[in-house]
C-alpha cells in the first residue's frame, strides 16, 4: 500500500504546512460552514481546533446568523474570484485583513472558499497615526498667514507650499502656483538671481534669516531659509516667509514720531538755554564791534598804528569764526533729522556739550569736573543726539543743585570703560537726589520731578540711547545727589559694513 502511505504522508505534510501559517486559514463550504481550519484560527478564537469544523464562519467570528454585508467570502461565492476586505471583529476589537478565494471544481462551480485572515490592527493603527500626524502637520502649516514652502535642491522647483504662499502669488503676482514651478516661472526676471543666491546660501551655509524687499519695493519679507535633511542627504530647502511690510511702516512712523519728539525736546531745552546762547554769541560779536571801533581810532592816529590794526583784524576773524561755530551748533541742534551714526570720541562729545553750557554753568555758579579714562575706544553714534542726551543730564543735574550753596554745586562728568565692549558716561550731581519711589519711573514720558518740567528730557534721552544700542539708568549716590549713567557699545576693530 505504497500509494496509501504516500497519501498519508502528503496529508500530514499538508496539515503541517497549513498549521505553520501564522494567518488564520479556513476552508469553507458554500454555506459558510468550516470544513477545515488551521491552528492559527483556533488560537485566534481561543477554542480547540476540533471544535471548529462544522461551525458557521459568521457565527464564530461575528456572532451573527448570516454573513456580513462586506464579507469577502460572500462576494467570492458570487463573483467566483478572489475577494478581500478589511473586517472589524467587534468582540475582540481587532481589524482583520480577509481574503477569500473560491475553490472551483472541474466544471467551474464553487465548491468552497479559502478564507485567510490576518490581524492588521497594529499596522492599521500605525497607518492611522501617520495619517493623523500628517493632517496635523498640514493644519499647522496652513494655520499661519506666513508663507511656507520648499524647493528641490537642484532646479529650486517648488515641492510643497502652503495656502499663504499660494494666496500671496495669487494676490500680488496673479499667478496660480503649482508644484514643480521654478524661480524663472514664478518671479520677475530681476529677482530670480537673488532667490537662487538665497537657496544656494542655505545649501552652503545652513539655516539663515534675511530681509527681502520685493523688486517692486512694495513689500518687505522676513525670510528664514533652511536645508531639509533626510539622513545625510539634502532633499530640499525650506523657506518661511513673513510679510513685515506693515510692521516696517509702523516702525518708520514710530521713528519719525520719535524724531519729532526729540526735536521738540531739543527746542524746549534750547528755550531754557536761550540767554546762555545769546551770551555765547554776544561775546564774539561784542569783541568784533569793539575791535572795529578801536581799529578806526587807531587809523585816525598819526602815524596810524598799523601793526595793532593788523592784530585786530586777525582777532576779528577769530571771533567771527567763534560766532559762526555757535550758530552752527545751534543749527545742528535745531534741525530735525534722522540718526546719523558715525564713529565718535566720547570725550569730544563731552567737551562740546560743556562748551555749549559754559555760560549756563557760569551763571548758575556750578563747578563742572570732567574725568575721562585715557584710551577709550570710539563709539558709533549720532553727535547731535548724544550731545542732546548729555545736555539733558547736565541741565537736570544743575537743576537738582539749585538750592545748594554755590560751593556745593559740583557736577562731575565721567567717561570710562564699562567693560571692553562698552563705554559708560556718568553725570553725578550733589543735589537733592531722586526719591526712592520715583527711581523706576523717571524715564517714563511725562514723569517729572521738577515743577516746571515737561517730563520729556529723560524719556527722550532713553529713547536716543536705546537707538544707539545702549542703556541708561539712574541711582542715588552714597553721598548727596544722584548719578545718571548711560552706556554705548564701543567700536572695536573696523568691521565690514554689509549694506
Amino acid at each position, binding site marked *: 500500500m505504497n500509494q496509501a502511505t504516500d497519501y498519508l504522508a502528503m496529508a500530514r505534510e499538508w496539515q503541517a504546512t497549513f498549521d505553520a501559517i501564522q494567518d488564520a486559514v479556513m476552508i469553507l463550504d458554500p454555506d459558510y460552514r468550516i470544513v477545515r481550519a488551521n491552528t492559527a484560527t483556533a488560537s485566534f478564537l481561543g477554542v480547540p481546533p476540533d471544535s471548529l469544523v462544522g461551525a458557521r464562519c459568521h457565527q464564530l467570528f461575528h456572532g451573527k446568523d448570516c454573513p456580513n454585508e462586506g464579507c469577502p467570502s460572500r462576494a467570492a461565492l458570487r463573483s467566483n474570484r478572489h475577494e478581500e476586505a478589511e473586517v472589524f471583529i467587534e468582540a475582540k476589537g481587532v481589524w482583520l485583513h480577509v481574503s477569500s478565494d473560491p475553490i472551483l471544481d472541474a466544471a467551474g462551480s464553487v465548491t468552497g472558499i479559502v478564507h485567510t485572515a490576518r490581524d492588521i490592527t497594529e499596522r492599521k493603527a500605525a497607518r492611522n497615526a501617520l495619517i493623523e500626524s500628517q493632517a496635523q502637520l498640514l493644519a499647522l502649516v496652513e494655520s499661519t498667514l506666513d508663507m511656507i514652502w520648499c524647493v528641490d535642491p537642484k532646479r529650486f522647483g517648488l515641492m510643497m507650499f502652503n495656502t499663504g504662499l499660494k494666496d500671496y502669488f495669487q494676490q500680488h503676482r496673479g499667478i496660480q502656483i503649482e508644484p514643480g514651478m521654478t524661480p524663472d516661472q514664478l518671479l520677475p526676471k530681476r529677482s530670480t538671481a537673488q532667490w537662487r543666491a538665497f537657496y544656494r546660501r542655505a545649501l552652503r551655509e545652513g539655516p539663515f534669516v534675511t530681509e527681502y524687499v520685493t523688486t517692486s519695493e512694495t513689500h518687505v519679507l522676513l525670510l528664514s531659509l533652511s536645508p531639509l535633511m533626510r539622513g545625510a542627504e539634502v532633499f530640499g530647502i525650506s523657506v518661511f516667509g513673513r510679510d513685515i511690510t506693515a510692521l516696517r511702516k509702523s516702525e518708520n512712523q514710530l521713528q519719525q514720531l520719535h524724531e519729532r519728539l526729540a526735536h521738540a525736546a531739543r527746542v524746549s531745552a534750547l528755550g531754557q538755554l536761550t540767554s546762555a546762547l545769546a551770551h555765547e554769541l*554776544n561775546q*564774539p560779536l*561784542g*569783541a*568784533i*564791534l*569793539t*575791535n572795529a*571801533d*578801536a581799529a578806526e581810532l587807531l587809523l585816525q592816529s598819526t602815524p596810524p598804528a598799523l601793526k595793532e590794526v593788523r592784530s585786530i583784524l586777525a582777532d576779528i576773524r577769530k571771533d567771527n569764526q567763534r560766532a559762526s561755530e555757535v550758530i552752527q551748533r545751534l543749527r545742528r541742534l535745531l534741525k530735525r533729522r534722522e540718526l546719523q551714526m558715525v564713529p565718535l570720541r566720547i570725550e569730544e562729545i563731552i567737551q562740546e556739550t560743556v562748551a555749549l553750557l559754559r555760560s549756563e554753568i557760569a551763571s548758575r555758579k556750578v563747578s563742572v569736573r570732567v574725568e575721562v579714562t585715557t584710551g577709550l575706544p570710539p563709539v558709533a553714534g549720532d553727535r547731535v543726539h548724544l550731545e542732546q542726551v548729555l545736555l539733558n543730564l547736565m541741565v537736570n543735574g544743575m537743576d537738582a543743585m539749585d538750592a545748594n550753596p554755590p560751593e556745593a554745586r559740583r557736577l562731575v562728568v565721567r567717561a570710562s570703560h564699562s567693560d571692553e565692549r562698552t563705554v559708560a558716561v556718568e553725570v553725578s550731581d550733589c543735589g537733592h537726589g531722586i526719591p526712592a519711589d520715583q527711581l523706576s519711573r523717571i524715564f517714563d514720558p511725562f514723569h517729572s520731578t521738577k515743577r516746571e518740567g515737561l517730563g520729556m528730557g529723560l524719556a527722550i534721552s532713553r529713547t536716543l540711547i536705546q537707538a544707539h544700542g545702549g542703556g541708561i539708568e539712574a541711582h542715588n549716590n552714597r553721598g548727596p545727589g544722584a548719578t545718571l549713567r548711560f552706556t554705548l557699545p564701543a567700536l572695536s576693530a573696523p568691521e565690514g559694513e554689509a549694506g
Partner: protein
Amino acid sequence: MKETRPVVHVVDDDVSFRTAVLRLLRAAGHETRGYGSAAELLAAEPGQSPGCIVLDVRMPGASGLDLQKALAAAEEPLPIVFLTGHGDIPATVQAMKAGAVDFLTKPVERGVLLPAVEGALARDVRARTERTRLRELRARYDTLTPREAEVLPLVVSGLLNKQIAAGLGLAERTVKAHRARVMEKMRVESLADLVRMASQLGLQKPGDR
C-alpha cells in the same frame, strides 16, 4: 589825591572781548588795566588811584553784582560801567539799585562805551574832590573842643547866643567866644557857610530830635 592819570579797569573773563575793549580804550587815550576775574581786580585794590571799572555781569566765580557789592564797601569806591548780554533785566535793575553809573548791553558801540567811560571818570573825579573836601571838613571839625562841638549844632540851628547860654548854663559872653572859635576853626566867614558845612558833616540839628 595823587597826581596820576585815571585808570580804566576792565573785568571780563572772555579774553577776546576784554582785549578788544582794552584796545578801544587805549586808542581813545585811556590808561587801562585788564582782569580775568573779580578776585584779580579786588586783589589789585583799584581804588588807590582814580579811575573807573568796566565790568561784565555774567562771569564765573563772583559775579559782577557780587563784585559791585565788594567794591562799594571799599574806602575809595570806583564808579562802575556794567556790560551785559541782551535783556538781562533782573541783573540790570539790581545793578542800578546798587549805584551803577551805566548799564550797557553787549555788543556795545564806541559812541556809547566811550562817553559812558568818560562820564564814569568825571564822576570819579567829582566824587574824589567831594570826599577830599569832606575829609578836610572832618579834620577841621575834629579840632573843636567838646564844648565848641556842643555849641556848633545849636548855632547852626539858628539860636541866639543868649538862648544857647541859657540852654547850656553858660555866660552869653562865653558862648560868643565859642562861636568865634568855631567859625575860625571851621574857616567860615558866615553863618550860612557854617550851616552848609554842618549839614555836609551830617550833624544833627537839635530841632530835628
